[in-house]
């Protein structure tokens, strides 16, 4: 009884995730699909031909978006890993305040900060540049990174590190052989979150990038708002690709368990 119920639930979940994508696939190859027709009049590759042509800028934009999301993730990791360790392992004065400040960008609506931010970056000469957009993306990305890493380190037992050090390992060796394997699954999840949060930014990119940094969400919206369902669908399918890819690559690793993880909260 139990396995079949689980299979059913799994199938339902998969269907729930996949079904909304099917109309996208149909739209991307549809030519003349009007109400009340159930199927498109004709099947055509015109949307894909356009989306993949160099003139459309979709591929260039794909590269830009990947670069920005990757850079944002790596930068966030530089800050989020030590911050998460400090917040997860130690009790210190003002810890609640730090957590609140870290959460603030996730709680505040983006539109409230975006215009002030544009002004600041403009004065710094960073508006309309890729570094400017990466900096701006760090604002919504850092809370995710830090909070996930805080949760990871809250279950981390530093006694394992002390053991390694007492056996003569250097700090770097300790990190590589003890700490990193233990936090790897959590680290993967944090990076996945960070990448996808940056990948899906629209408003921040539009305002800070001043239209010159063309990420995929901007391009997608430009066609969606012009009523080109076929091209929008083709770009949308390209858009979800990295998310699926990263998930497929990391799925196995994020379920792993490390020896240095304890189930209880470390004091």
């Amino acid at each position, binding site marked *: 009884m139990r396995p079949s119920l689980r299979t059913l639930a799994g199938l339902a979940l998969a269907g729930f995730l996949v079904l909304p994508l099917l109309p996208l696939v149909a739209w991307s190859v*549809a*030519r*003349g*699909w*009007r*109400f*009340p027709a159930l199927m498109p*009049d*004709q099947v*055509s590759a*015109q949307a894909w031909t*356009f989306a993949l042509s160099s*003139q*459309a*800028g979709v591929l260039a934009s794909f590269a830009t978006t990947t670069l920005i999301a990757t*850079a944002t993730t*790596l*930068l966030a990791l*530089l800050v989020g890993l030590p911050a998460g360790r400090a917040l997860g392992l130690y009790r210190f004065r003002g810890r609640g305040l730090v957590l609140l400040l870290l959460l603030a960008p996730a709680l505040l609506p983006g539109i409230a900060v975006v*215009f002030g931010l*544009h*002004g600041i970056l*403009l*004065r710094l*000469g960073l*508006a*309309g*540049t*890729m*570094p400017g957009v*990466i900096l701006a993306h760090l604002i919504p990305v850092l809370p995710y990174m830090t909070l996930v890493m805080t949760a990871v380190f809250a279950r981390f037992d530093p006694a394992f590190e002390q053991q390694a050090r007492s056996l003569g390992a250097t700090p770097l060796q300790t990190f590589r052989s003890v700490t990193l394997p233990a936090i790897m699954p959590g680290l993967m999840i944090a990076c996945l979150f960070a990448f996808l949060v940056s990948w899906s930014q629209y408003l921040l990119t539009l305002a800070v990038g*001043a*239209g*010159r940094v*063309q990420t995929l969400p*901007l*391009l997608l*919206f*430009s*066609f969606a*708002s*012009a*009523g*080109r*369902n*076929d*091209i929008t669908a083709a770009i949308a399918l390209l858009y979800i690709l990295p998310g699926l890819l990263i998930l497929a690559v990391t799925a196995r690793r994020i379920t792993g368990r490390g020896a240095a993880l304890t189930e209880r909260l470390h004091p």
Partner: protein
Amino acid sequence: MLRSLATLLLLSTAALADTADGEALKAMSWDQIVDKARGGTVNWFMWGGSDTINAYVSGYVADRLRADYGITLNRVPITDAADIVNQVLSEKEAGVTDAGSVDLIWINGENFRSMKQADLAFCGYTDLLPNDALVNWDNPAIANDFGVPVDGCEVPWNTVQFAFAHDSAVVTDPPRDIASLLDWIKANPGRFTYPAPPDFTGSAFLRHVLIHAAGGPDSLLGPFDQATFDTTAAKTWAILNEIEPFLWREGATYPTTVTQLNELFANGEVDFSFNYDPAQFGLAVQAGTWPETTRSFGLTDGTIGNTNYTLIPFNSPNKAAAMVVQNLLLSGEAQLEKAKPEVWGAAPAIEVARTGPEVQDGLAAIKTHPSVVPAADLAKAALPELQADWLTAIEKGWAENVGN
């Protein structure tokens, strides 16, 4: 990481061949300007919703710029030029006077007025462009953008005239003037709607009703007049409130953009769409979005025409290259290319008689898309565009009296 960030920073600024000083350019000859322009990059912010227009700009125009001048054209797709006006304005407020992010904008109407009023446009250079000679600046419809004098602050690109589209398989005999359109709406409940202002196209439809209510455009031309507006507007709101229960969804809601109206039309939920640029009808049919039986028409009491332009912001760092782009866009060859229905189908903004024989023959040989009413037919009954102040008053009045 720091090093790659620094590289990124360098990459993003190194490409600028700085020609921010517009006054210096105005003192130069065209050959000198072209020399300055070589190797430059132009960030052209334009509505990006049509793949064919995009392909014309990123293909034909960009290829010629690269081949002839070594200029890189970076087409920046946008959804609303008003956002870009605000962007240039915030750059000005932040003191960015020579390193703006926008080099060229596709613009007209209220957005042009905003830019001109706030001194955001680079002005007084258009006579330097060799192809400026092809422009008939004596034509008031070219020299004035929605009633605002152009004053050398922008360069015409296309002329358009408002037209209606219908599916000839559904509506065989569409109404040909506003009065009979209003009757048709009442006789066919739920089959008509218009985008709510301030949508550009919805606002243009309103002006046709306003001109109808005024009994012709004459009393509405010239600067804004509150007394005339009050009487005419009252009649207009009465007409629009009278037809409201007969509109799509009984007028409880309106489409907010012309894109939504186009989608309603494509799906047969309403029987008419309309556009300032009738070439869009042909493009929609070619894209497979609209039925092949789509036809379009003007009104016997006239439809409003206007011109759209390209403008260089005051703080563009690539003014020389942007001027070369504008000059190329004005050339007979480029205007002919975009007049081809499979490319765009846009009517030229230049005086055809002033172009060379090849361009003239090419334009004469063009057969407009069957779904697009020929510009010459529309031109037989043309209405002038009202000044921008009227537009603001109409849009505000509609929201208070009809769309409430």
